[in-house]
């Protein structure tokens, strides 16, 4: 009997674990280690942040779902990996610390035959002084609890605006090395929509601040699409929406410090500027989970397994890390998400170390990097989880020695529906697809992407799709009937 250990029960880990258990049945064990008792459909946190949904609408208890599926669920967080075992264990293992109320703080070593690291992002608010809801001056929508608090504060500001007060809203990225601009984009327009609904839009100045070189970069170097008889940059598409909705924008910005009601930021041309706010939601930069790794003798091998940001090395071409943008290639991106030293170890979703940026690296004259880091959104994260699940299944059941399924971000597309306001008849969203996610200028020399697979449009239909996705992905994650036919 083989044991597959999945670290992280988020979008990619949950996908991998549930498919693996379905395919492997009772003959093999699937263990999931994840610190929260509840699963969160993170994309809908945007709506929680504007009061359009409650916390309960976007989370559910994991234990009953895993019990039904026959998955061994441990509410714990992984602390370290011993991929060679140790002096006392011949098998590789992960040291975990339990986080549930019953056994909080107790530790255990869990052995494995195959390991999937799907620990996602650590929200690195500490990278910017004064950032974040816990000890900072901004709100966040990155977790369901953060989003609840973001709405409480928004509702309070709206009440003050109803009395005639003018307010400044600042939404965007809280550091020069952030990813996840899409979430900030969505929150911007959902807040704008909410203010309009509350009848206080005229009292608001809304500013979007971002580390993107231009609007519409989204950490994927922007995109081109066919529109109105032209092949147009996504920048035009994005700026049009900001203009239409009266949102001012600041790009090429690294937020250095957040004080009460004010940020200090540096621009790509080295200027130091300030911006005031009454309400700010700034996305933090993401780091890896921060696990350690040890070899059989107990030597620290963390730097061999994880990059300095805490993301796990896989089968990417890391020699290109410092290469110029023009030398980036599609093949630099990992095909199988498999660690090359320990081939029974995989990393999927945000947890794997990208070979380099997708957007062009940029620095201010002061040496401050101001560029989006690569996004690994829900769809590719889940697809990586499923591909790795397939590979492990084939290794266990068919004795495959090499992975059989790939999930390379330069060979797969992404569908993205960015909400711009909630409401069955009044809502809207930008529905976008791009193929591939990482531009491939060798295959598509003009624009890096297949223009037949890359498109975008705004409208009510996008909102319906976003709403439909909310219910269908929760249905799938709860393993309700026919869950396997719902695509990633």
């Amino acid at each position, binding site marked *: 009997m083989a044991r597959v250990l999945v670290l992280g029960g988020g979008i990619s880990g949950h996908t991998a674990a549930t498919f693996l258990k379905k395919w492997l049945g009772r003959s093999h064990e699937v263990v999931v280690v994840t610190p929260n008792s509840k699963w969160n459909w993170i994309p809908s946190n945007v709506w929680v942040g504007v009061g359009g949904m409650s916390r309960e609408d976007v989370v559910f208890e994991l234990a009953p779902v895993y019990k039904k599926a026959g998955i061994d669920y441990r509410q714990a967080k992984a602390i370290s990996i011993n991929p060679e075992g140790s002096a006392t264990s011949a098998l590789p293992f992960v040291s975990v610390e339990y986080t549930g109320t019953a056994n909080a703080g107790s530790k255990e070593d869990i052995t494995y035959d195959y390991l999937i690291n799907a620990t996602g992002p650590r929200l690195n608010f500490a990278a910017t002084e004064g950032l974040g809801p816990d000890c900072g001056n901004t709100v966040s929508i990155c977790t369901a609890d953060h989003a609840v608090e973001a709405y409480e504060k928004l509702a309070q500001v709206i009440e003050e605006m109803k009395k005639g007060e003018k307010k400044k809203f600042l939404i965007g990225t809280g550091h020069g090395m952030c990813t996840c601009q899409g979430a900030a984009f969505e929150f911007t327009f959902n807040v704008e929509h909410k203010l309009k609904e509350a009848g206080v839009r005229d009292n608001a100045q809304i500013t979007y601040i971002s580390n993107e070189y231009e609007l519409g970069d989204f950490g994927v170097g922007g995109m081109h699409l066919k529109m109105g008889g032209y092949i147009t940059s996504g920048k035009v598409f994005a700026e*049009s929406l900001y*203009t*239409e909705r009266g949102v001012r924008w600041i790009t090429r910005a690294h937020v250095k410090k957040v004080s009460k009601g004010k940020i200090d930021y540096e621009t790509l041309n080295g200027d130091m500027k300030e911006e005031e706010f009454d309400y700010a939601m700034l996305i933090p930069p993401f780091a890896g989970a921060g696990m350690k790794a040890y070899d059989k003798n107990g030597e620290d091998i963390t730097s061999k397994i994880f990059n300095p940001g805490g993301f796990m090395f896989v089968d990417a071409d890391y020699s290109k890390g410092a290469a110029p943008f023009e030398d980036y290639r599609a093949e630099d991106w990992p095909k199988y998400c498999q660690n090359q030293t320990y081939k029974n170890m995989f990393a999927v979703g945000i947890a794997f170390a990208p070979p380099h940026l997708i957007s062009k690296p940029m620095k201010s004259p002061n040496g401050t990097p101001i560029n989006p880091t690569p996004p690994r959104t829900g769809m590719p994260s889940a697809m990586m989880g499923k591909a790795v699940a397939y590979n492990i299944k084939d290794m266990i059941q068919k004795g495959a020695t090499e992975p059989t399924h790939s999930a390379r971000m330069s060979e797969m*597309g992404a569908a993205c529906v960015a909400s711009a306001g909630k409401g069955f008849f009044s809502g809207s969203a930008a529905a976008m697809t791009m193929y591939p996610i990482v531009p491939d200028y060798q295959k598509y020399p003009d624009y890096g992407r297949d223009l037949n697979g890359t498109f975008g449009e705004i*409208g009510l239909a996008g909102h*319906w799709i976003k709403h439909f996705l909310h219910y269908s992905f929760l249905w799938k994650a709860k393993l309700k009937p026919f869950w396997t036919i719902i695509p990633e």
Partner: protein
Amino acid sequence: MKLTPYSQNAYTPVPSGFTKFRRNCVPWQIVRFIAINIKMTMLILKSHH
């Protein structure tokens, strides 16, 4: 929308009244709902290796 000459937003395209109408016109959006779903499904099929 009132244009402020030489401001940030003076150089961007804005949707015409007809475009805005289409974005919220339920019968047209039903058509778009189907079309976008087909496009996304094709993309998903193309992405599995």
